[in-house]
């Protein structure tokens, strides 16, 4: 790797702030589901926050991401506003997608969140297309595809990486390896030890990184994004991480290795990063606590607003299906 300098203090604080936002947002999501205020099918990304936070501090506002059902952290780190997000979770007219898409299909072009897909593997070919549009227009934007470890076994992954490589598309493929695809372990489903090793099949750089280590992940993200932006083509990052709350929130995680899970939760990357921020003297505990409280209150307001927002009209069923009736 070229750039091993790590983030500046300012950037590290920003990175932490993004992590905190994703973590607190997730805590609120689980809270409102548990207490029945806002029941929904929810795929918690708790534990994976550092990855998109580190990516996002290296991305520009006009760079774009394509993410998946478990992509709440990817979204908020990229800048999807929590009020529109929560209104969408609640299925309200004020939601990002007017309530039509829901949690699995959050879209917010303004912040660069171009696609959230519920289909495993499908974020990659579409991220290629965004990258292709930059290439065709001679723009130096970068496109990011987020996906899981299990997605690396589906056909779309293979086709997308091959195409991105031969055309040197400015795209970064970020595999968030949380060791499970639904209830199946990575090892049981995957014929290779490291997803990043598959990069060799496509003649592209493959980076294996501890996605829970903010500094390492920052360096990996910076290297990959710089590489793509400078026209050298795509990069595959495999960021090792863990999801704390199973596949779908509320599932009986009997399929999980409980010791592994316990270990992972003890090594929660967000408080670790918080400690680092404090120990480096970037911010004090009190300052961070204040910041976190502000985030939490913003989210709680967003939830309140979402709950009291109007439902979409039923005639919305006939709208946005096509551009206009022909």
């Amino acid at each position: 790797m070229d750039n091993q300098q790590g983030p500046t203090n300012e950037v590290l604080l920003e990175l932490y702030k993004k992590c905190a936002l994703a973590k607190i947002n997730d805590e609120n999501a689980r809270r409102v589901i548990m207490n029945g205020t806002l029941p929904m099918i929810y795929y918690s990304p708790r534990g994976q926050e550092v990855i998109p936070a580190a990516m996002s501090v290296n991305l520009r506002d006009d760079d774009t991401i394509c993410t998946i059902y478990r992509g709440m952290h990817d979204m908020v780190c990229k800048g999807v506003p929590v009020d529109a997000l929560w209104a969408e979770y609640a299925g309200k007219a004020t939601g990002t997608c007017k309530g039509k898409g829901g949690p699995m299909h959050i879209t917010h072009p303004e912040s660069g969140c171009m696609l959230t897909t519920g289909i495993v593997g499908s974020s990659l070919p579409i991220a290629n297309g965004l990258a292709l549009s930059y290439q065709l227009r001679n723009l130096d934007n970068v496109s990011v595809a987020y996906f899981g470890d299990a997605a690396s076994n589906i056909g779309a992954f293979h086709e997308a990486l091959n195409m991105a490589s031969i055309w040197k598309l400015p795209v970064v493929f970020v595999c968030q390896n949380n060791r499970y695809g639904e209830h199946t372990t990575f090892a049981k489903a995957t014929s290779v030890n490291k997803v990043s090793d598959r990069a060799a099949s496509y003649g592209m750089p493959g980076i294996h990184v501890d996605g829970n280590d903010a500094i390492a992940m920052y360096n990996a993200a910076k290297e990959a994004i710089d590489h793509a932006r400078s026209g050298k083509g795509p990069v595959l990052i495999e960021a090792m991480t863990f999801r704390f709350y199973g596949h779908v929130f509320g599932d009986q995680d009997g399929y999980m290795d409980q010791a592994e899970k316990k270990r992972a939760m003890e090594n929660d990357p967000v408080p670790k990063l918080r400690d680092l921020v404090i120990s480096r003297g970037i911010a004090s505990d009190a300052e961070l606590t204040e910041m976190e409280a502000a985030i939490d209150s913003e989210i709680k307001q967003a939830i309140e607003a979402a709950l009291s927002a109007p439902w979409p009209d039923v005639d919305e069923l006939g709208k946005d299906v096509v551009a206009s009736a022909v």
Partner: protein
Amino acid sequence: MVNTEEQTTVIQALNAAMADAMEQDDSIFLLGEDIADPEEGGVAGVTAGLSTRFGDSRVRSTPISEQAIVGAGIGAALNGMRPVLEIMMMNFATVAMDMIVNHAAKLRFMSGGQTQVPLTIRMATGAGLSTAGQHADYLEAWFAHTAGLKVVTYSNPADAYGLLQSCIFDNDPCIFIENFLSYSVKGGAPEKGSRVPLGKAKVVREGSDLTIVCYGAQVSIALSVAEKFAAEGVSVEVVDLRTISPWDQETVFTSVAKTGRLVVSHEALKAFGVGAEIAAVVQQELWSSLKAPVRRAGAPTCPVPYSRPLELAFMTSVEDLETEARLLLK
């Protein structure tokens, strides 16, 4: 041993259908994502216990690779096995349509009958759970438009058991459609080893004024509508297709010849759906018996929406079906 206490759920019936079939015939094996017990026997638990009972080799959790899953099923079927595949949700079949349509469906014909593909592909779907645009499509019309496939679904536990058994022992590829919301539906217990014949519809309620042809979750909706009309003195016959393709023309024709009025109802988009074929055939064949045009109930032309009021409006409801029926009775 029909359990009159209606204590069996659809999920139990499906599980038993597979268990009983596997016990009887060791050419039967199961593939699908998360279906083995270490992975909790499937996301909905339909295959729970089967890997423990029949072994990890015959009940395999797979990678997320639907093309490879269906391909593995086809190849094994070509060699005389009877694979039962789970495609977790019907929308995910879209990544495996080549395997299903260009291969499973056609190999008997293209080989001139030398090979066959006795394969069952289970796939679940259904709006109503707020899973939105990519997890609740109804693609039965696609499969029905494909020569060589049988398309099957059920409305109660005993049929779920008997139809799945028939699919498993059938010598052709069968698309067995499940509905998430149906899993907890209770009914009489199926008899062990009982099979419901493919291609045979069932008159689930007799009537003389109007026929409702439907399948799957629509059957209970149709029965509610029938109840409502009964209170008004209108007698509604309800036909549960059970096999969507090939559908039982004889039973439908007999019913419509008697009632002279038909509504076809399904959860899928009305436009270009299964109901269109039934309407087209019935109006042609029973032209002189019909007292009114065939009408259809089905979903509007849009993706499945997330927001609860939109989703409810999207789903083919008692009111939707009732509206169509009333238009016929005017």
